[in-house]
């Protein structure tokens, strides 16, 4: 079972308390009526599906109920870090070169 660090509860807890919520840092267009159908489809459906380091959202469903972001390696399932929703993307170089504290 994955152990995930919730940045709001500040605890590392079993995966069963969480719900996965897709790729992170996808901003909804500020004015949807101005974007083309292609751009809208891109926003709605197209995801990067990376093999490797992935920025993704999780929700602490059976806990504080908060959405937060995580950086996970999709190959090894290791969490590099988790951070609060709305925070900027953490710098990848520092993450890869320092041991993880946000979960295992």
């Amino acid at each position, binding site marked *: *079972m994955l152990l995930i660090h919730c940045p*709001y*509860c*500040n*605890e590392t*807890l*079993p995966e*069963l*308390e969480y719900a996965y919520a897709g790729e992170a840092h996808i901003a909804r267009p500020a004015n949807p009526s101005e974007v083309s159908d292609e751009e809208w489809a891109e926003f709605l459906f197209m995801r990067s599906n990376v093999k490797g380091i992935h920025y993704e959202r999780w929700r602490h*469903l*059976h*806990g*504080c*109920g*908060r959405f937060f972001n995580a950086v996970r390696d999709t190959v090894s399932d290791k969490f590099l870090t988790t951070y609060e929703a709305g925070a900027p993307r953490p710098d990848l170089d520092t993450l890869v070169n320092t041991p993880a504290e946000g979960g295992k």
Partner: protein
Amino acid sequence: MNALTSLPTAILETSAARILLAKPKARFSLRARGDLAPFEAALGLSLGGPLGTRASTGSRETIRLAPDEWMLHSTPSDAAAIEGACAALYDAHPHSLVSVSAREVTVVIEGPRAAELLTIGCPRDIAKIEPGSGRRTVFDGVTVILWRDAEDSFRMDVWNSFAPHLIDLLKIGARELAAEVA
């Protein structure tokens, strides 16, 4: 009326754990952001601290579930006073206070192996929940609020519709623990 109203207060007692149904309470879900001091003054309770922190004054008891969410328990006769205290704050400090008294029941689990009994449904490390604190967590797929009153005494708030299932599960677990050869 649901099936639970006919359940007796004591549900099961084995050598491992006792399972009881707590008396009806007034329950409120409070959501508030910003300055908490006016709410603390109105309710007479401290609302700060890390998630899982509890506070109590008289019959009122609160637990912080999220950065902006608290569960507030009291006696049914105190409900109107709580509603009145918060309503007076509403204009200056918009918030949400929702009565959820009829939504949940509280199951008391106590006894020498109460903590072990909880591990049958809760993936979290029970030992890390300090006595006197609590957490919202999951029990066999159901969201519950777990209050740890003492080393071997817990209360579990669970939605009515899930309660018969969870209570049956706890009964089976308590019997199995008691049946184990020492």
